C-alpha cells in the first residue's frame, strides 16, 4: 500500500454539505458565497446534475445499501487468517529449503502437527438471501501422505520437502511439484494426495504430467517413475495432461478399469459408485474396462459400468468446467447439481416435501461464488426454495410462508 500524499482537509466534506443545502434550497447567502469560493461553477453543476439524475441516483443509493459492513468485516478477518498463515508457512519454507541444501533430508513432522482445516471458517453470515448463513466456496487444499506414512497439510502455501530417495517436492500456490533430478536408487516410493470436500489441488508429477484433482478425490503415484511404465491410481475426479513419452506408457487405474495413455489430455470422473466417465480432450487413450476395451477419439466420452462400456460424443465444456473454475450444468438433474454442490461447499443436502429431484436445469456459475449466490441462481431457475443452516442445505418445493 502506497502512502497517500494528498490531504484535502475539510474541503470535500464542507463542499458536499453546502451542495446538499443548495440542492434542498436551504442554503444562506453567506454559505452560497463560501461554496462558490470552494469550488468552480462547472464542477458544482456536474455534482448537482448527478443527484438530479434520479434513475442514476437511485441505482447508486441501492448499491450503497448493498455494501454490507458486518458481513464484510467477517471477510476481513477471514482474509487476515489467511495472510497470517501464509506468513508463518513461508518461514517454514525457508527452514526446509536450508535443510535440503545442507544435505539433511527435511522431515515433515513439523508440518504434520498442524491442525486440520477448519470447515467452520467457510461459514459466513448472510444478509443478502435470507439464509441463516452463507457458505464460502472450496479452496486449494489437500493432504499429502509421504512414503514414510507421515502426512502434510497443503493449503496453497509454499514449502519444500525431500523424499527418502532424494526426490524433491515443492508446494507453491495451490500446486505440488515433483522433481526427481536429484533422486537415486531403484526403490519405488509412493505418495498419496487426498483432496477433501470443498477442496481442489493440482500436482505436477516428475515426468511433467499435470493432474488437477477435484474435491473429494485422491491420487496415488510413485514419486519417481522408475520402471518401464508410468502407473497412477485415482479416486473421485481428475483432469490429466500427460507428458508424452513413447518409451514409458502412462496409465490410470480407476475403480477396476485402466485408462492407457500416450501424450494426451483427458478427464476422469469416478464419483459415482460403479460408474466411471472418461472424456478425451486431445491425443489418444484406450479404456480397458470390466466390459471390454475401447479407444477414444478427442471429443468422445467412455462410460464404464458393471454392465457395459459405452462410447459417445461428449459435452467437453461440461467435462472440464470444474478444472477451469466454474460449474457447468447442462440438462442436469437437481440431484446431480446437488451432488456437485455438496462436494465443493462441503455441505449436506436434505430434501423436504415433494421435491422433483429429476427436474433438469442448465446454466453455469463460477466456483468462486458463495453457496448463497449459487442457490440464488438455482432458485430463480427452478422455483425451488432453499435454506442453509450451518453446513446443512434444505431443498423444498413449497414456497415459504
Amino acid at each position, binding site marked *: *500500500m*502506497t502512502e*497517500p*500524499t*494528498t*490531504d*484535502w*482537509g*475539510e*474541503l*470535500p*466534506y464542507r*463542499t*458536499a*454539505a453546502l*451542495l*446538499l443545502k443548495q*440542492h*434542498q*434550497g*436551504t442554503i444562506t447567502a453567506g454559505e452560497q458565497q463560501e461554496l462558490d469560493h470552494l*469550488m468552480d461553477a462547472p*464542477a458544482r453543476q*456536474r*455534482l448537482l446534475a*448527478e*443527484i*438530479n439524475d*434520479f434513475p442514476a*441516483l*437511485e441505482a*447508486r*443509493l*441501492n*448499491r*450503497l*445499501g*448493498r*455494501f*454490507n*459492513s*458486518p458481513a*464484510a*468485516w467477517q*471477510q*476481513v*478477518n477471514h*482474509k*487476515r*487468517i489467511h*495472510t*497470517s498463515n501464509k506468513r508463518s508457512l513461508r518461514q517454514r519454507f525457508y527452514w526446509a529449503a536450508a535443510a535440503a541444501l545442507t544435505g539433511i533430508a527435511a522431515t515433515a513432522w513439523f508440518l504434520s502437527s498442524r491442525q486440520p482445516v477448519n470447515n467452520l471458517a467457510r461459514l459466513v453470515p448472510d444478509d443478502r438471501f435470507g439464509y441463516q448463513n452463507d457458505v464460502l466456496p472450496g479452496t486449494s487444499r489437500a493432504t499429502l501422505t509421504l512414503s514414510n506414512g507421515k502426512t502434510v497439510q497443503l493449503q496453497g502455501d509454499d514449502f519444500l520437502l525431500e523424499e527418502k530417495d532424494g526426490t524433491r517436492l515443492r508446494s507453491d500456490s495451490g500446486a505440488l511439484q515433483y522433481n526427481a533430478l536429484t533422486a537415486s536408487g531403484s526403490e519405488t516410493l509412493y505418495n498419496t494426495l487426498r483432496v477433501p470436500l470443498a477442496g481442489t489441488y493440482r500436482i505436477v508429477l516428475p515426468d511433467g504430467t499435470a493432474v488437477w484433482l477435484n474435491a473429494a478425490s485422491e491420487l496415488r503415484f510413485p514419486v519417481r517413475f522408475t520402471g518401464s511404465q508410468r502407473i497412477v491410481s485415482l479416486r473421485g475426479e481428475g483432469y490429466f495432461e500427460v507428458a508424452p513419452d513413447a518409451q514409458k506408457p502412462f496409465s490410470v487405474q480407476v475403480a477396476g478399469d485402466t485408462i492407457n495413455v500416450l501424450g494426451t489430455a483427458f478427464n476422469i470422473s469416478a464419483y459415482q459408485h460403479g460408474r466411471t466417465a472418461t472424456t478425451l480432450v486431445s491425443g489418444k487413450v484406450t479404456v480397458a474396462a470390466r466390459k471390454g476395451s475401447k479407444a477414444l477419439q478427442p471429443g468422445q466420452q467412455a462410460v464404464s459400468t458393471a454392465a457395459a462400456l459405452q462410447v459417445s460424443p461428449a459435452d467437453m465444456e461440461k467435462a472440464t468446467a470444474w478444472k477451469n473454475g466454474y460449474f457447468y450444468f447442462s440438462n442436469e438433474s437437481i440431484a446431480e447439481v446437488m451432488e456437485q454442490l455438496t462436494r465443493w461447499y462441503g455441505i449436506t443436502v436434505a430434501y423436504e416435501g415433494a421435491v422433483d429431484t429429476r427436474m433438469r436445469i442448465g446454466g453455469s456459475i463460477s466456483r468462486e461464488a458463495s453457496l448463497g449466490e449459487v442457490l440464488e441462481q438455482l432458485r430463480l431457475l427452478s422455483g425451488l426454495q432453499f435454506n442453509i443452516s450451518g453446513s446443512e442445505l434444505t431443498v423444498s418445493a413449497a414456497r415459504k410462508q
Partner: protein
Amino acid sequence: MVKFPGHDERSAAIEPLFHQYYPRLCEFAYRYLNDEALAEDVVQDVFVLLCERSGLLPETDTARKNYLYAVVRNACFNRLRHLKVVHRHQDEQLREQPFSPAEVLETIISTEMLAAMHAAVASLPEGCAAVLRKSYVEGLSNTEIAESLKISIHTVKSQKQRALSLLRERLGPGFVFLLFFIR
C-alpha cells in the same frame, strides 16, 4: 501462540471505522473499478493491511476520512494497473483521466453527498419508515397498512405526512423518487 484476528486491540479500534465508512469507500472504489465485488475486495484488503500494520491512525475524523479515501484511491489505482495487462488499450485513459487530484476530489464530494442522502433515508424514525415502505415499496393502501401494522388509519396518514416532510426537508426536491429504496 495463536492470535485470533478480530480480537486484538488494533482491530477492535479499527472495526467501528470500518462499519462507518465501508459502504461509502466501496462506492468510491466502484467509481473507478466498475465492479461491486472488485470494489469490496479492494476496500477489504485495505482494512486487512490497516489491521496488520502498527502505525498510528490520524487522530481527527476529517484526517481519517482523508486518509481512508486516499489509501482506497491508491489501492484502486494499483488494482487497475494490475488489470491493465489484460486491457492494454486502456492504458492511456488510466494515466490521464481519473486519479487526477481534481477528479479524485470531485469523486469524494460526490460520494459524501450520496452517503448523506442515504443516511437521511435510513435514519427516518422507525414508524415513519415502516409506513412509507408499506405504502411505496409494497404498494399497500392506507387501510391495508393500518391493518397490517395494527394502528389507526389516522396514525398511518400522519406518519406518512411526517415521513414525507422529513424527507423533503432532508433531501430537497425530487425526494419522492427516493422512496424506491427505502428498505
